[in-house]
């Protein structure tokens, strides 16, 4: 187990190195970092001087090593717009985003587990059909469209929640729902099919023949085992939630990392963009690792 964790951590470091290379190439090769730092009418000589001052005339590999060396120490440069270290700005926004993603994940799991179990229990009933159809629909709708629909229904029509903004718990509901609907649509069919598989197992028949109640069989015998693969998918939903939060935060004016990042992209504030992508990648890799370890903990048959 210790060896496995060490191996996975080693892989994660390599992956992060590749991520930094992608971020670096994207900003320095695909785009011109000086493009937005000088006035539009700056002469070519001025631009050249700027490039030299920033060290952009050095070989690409040297520049990358320089970028990497600083990145390891948490220095991604200053934000052009705020003139503060980009990493501090991003870290300030992080808890707000995690609050949204956490609430969304909670909603998703709270929706998905009962709906998944019930639609397996009443497989092929009208209830199952409705749940399956809704989850198919949830997967077919981009999250900005779900967000707009929720605003239309819950904020404009029924005036239950505010259209956008932050501050109270009510502000959190619609953006979290937007993200949760998408995640739940992925999780529900999985719980359903796992439950159906597990219900065929011998130990369920044994439990039934012993006279164990249906409720106990469903919840204790079946669900516990159907949960194993679900844990992985829930963990894999985390990057999706963070990625989806980019747009969702923009729609609902939620002041998290996603909204901050979109603003930075629009302002071409590349230090901020780089640090945000880096942080999101770290979270994703960490979530994947945790998922694999939890998988191993809850299913004693899996040994690495």
């Amino acid at each position, binding site marked *: 187990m210790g060896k496995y964790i060490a191996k996975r951590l080693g892989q994660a470091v390599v*992956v992060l190195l590749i991520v930094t290379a992608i971020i670096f190439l*994207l900003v320095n090769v695909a785009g011109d970092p000086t493009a937005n730092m000088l006035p539009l009418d700056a002469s070519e000589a001025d631009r050249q001087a700027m490039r030299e001052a920033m060290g952009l005339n050095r070989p690409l590999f040297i520049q990358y090593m320089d970028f990497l060396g600083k990145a390891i120490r948490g220095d991604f440069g200053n934000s052009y717009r705020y003139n503060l270290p980009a990493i501090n700005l991003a870290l300030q926004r992080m808890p707000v985003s995690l609050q949204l993603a956490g609430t969304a994940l909670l909603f998703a799991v709270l929706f998905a587990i009962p709906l998944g179990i019930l639609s397996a229990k009443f497989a092929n009933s009208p209830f199952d059909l409705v749940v399956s159809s809704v989850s198919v629909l949830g997967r077919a709708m*981009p999250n900005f469209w779900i967000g*707009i629909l929720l605003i239309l229904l819950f904020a404009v029509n029924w005036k239950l929640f505010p259209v956008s903004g932050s501050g109270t718990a009510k502000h959190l509901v619609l953006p979290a729902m937007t993200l949760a609907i998408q995640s739940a649509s992925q999780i529900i069919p999985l719980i359903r099919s796992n439950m159906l598989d597990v219900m065929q197992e011998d130990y369920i028949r044994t439990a039934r023949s012993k006279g164990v109640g249906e409720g106990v069989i469903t919840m204790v015998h079946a669900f516990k085992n159907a949960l194993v693969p679900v844990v992985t998918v829930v963990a894999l939903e985390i990057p999706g939630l963070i990625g989806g939060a980019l747009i969702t935060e923009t729609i609902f004016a939620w002041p998290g990392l996603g909204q901050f990042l*979109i603003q930075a*992209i629009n302002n071409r504030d590349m230090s901020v963009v780089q640090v945000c992508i880096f942080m999101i990648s770290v979270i994703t890799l960490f979530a994947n690792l945790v998922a694999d370890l939890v998988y191993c903990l809850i299913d004693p048959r899996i040994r690495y």
Partner: protein
Amino acid sequence: MQKKPGGRILRLLLQSYTGCVGLFIVTAMVVFAVFAKQIAPFEPNAMNPLEMLKPPAFCEGGSMKHLLGTDNLGHDIFSRIVYGTRVSIIIGVCSVLIAGFIGTAFGLVAGYFGGFADAVIMRVTDAFHAIPRTLLALVAVSVMSSGVTTLIIVIGVTGWITYARVVRSEVLALKNREFVKAAITVGTPDWRIILDHILPNVLSSVIVVSTLAVATSIIAESSLSFLGLGIQPPSISWGGMLSTGRSYIATNWWVATMPGIALTVTVLGIMFLGNWLRDVMDPHHTGSGS
């Protein structure tokens, strides 16, 4: 006499309700895109200040003249949706061709050669997986010029990881099959084994992944356009229409809702068709179509 394979596929299609619906939607979309000029009643960018924000025909105050109503500039929404199909199809299909080519090539190399090449390709795949695709595409589009070609390239280049993973795992299984081992034994060069023996056997998976990938590419394009970094006016994209409609959500719901429905129906159609294809092409997978 042997039956034509087309007849078998048609029979399988008719057995699947969702497969039929999917095929119908996708066909309708292609027809819309090709004959946009003939189908759309109005020029999609024709502004009409007298007919601004008219509700759809089935609502109070609407008229048959503008079937799905008009937006804030008096554009006919139906005509814009019809023209928007073009952007969705072009970007969806072309970017999937790019993604499919890159991903399949990587998957073949990683699976067939294994070892160092496999390790490197898999770590690069992990790295691309760790960055949300919309985010990567967003930054790439923002540093390059925006336009249909850029979007196709960006969405294509950010979408290859599924192919690489699926193809790699198939190749790993194929490598142990007799016909591949036989080819190796008689000294067939590696590239011939890959192209003649392995590639044809992974193609069905590639096709299935591609169908579903068209749907995600369409969503990616509309997301970028919704954020104002994708298709720029006067070109029409459903994502851009939704973004306009967002400002009128409190008063004129149809401006955002109509392109939203078009997007959902399209994605749904492609998903249905893709799932059906998966059922038909993969005998191990039991689903509604098999």
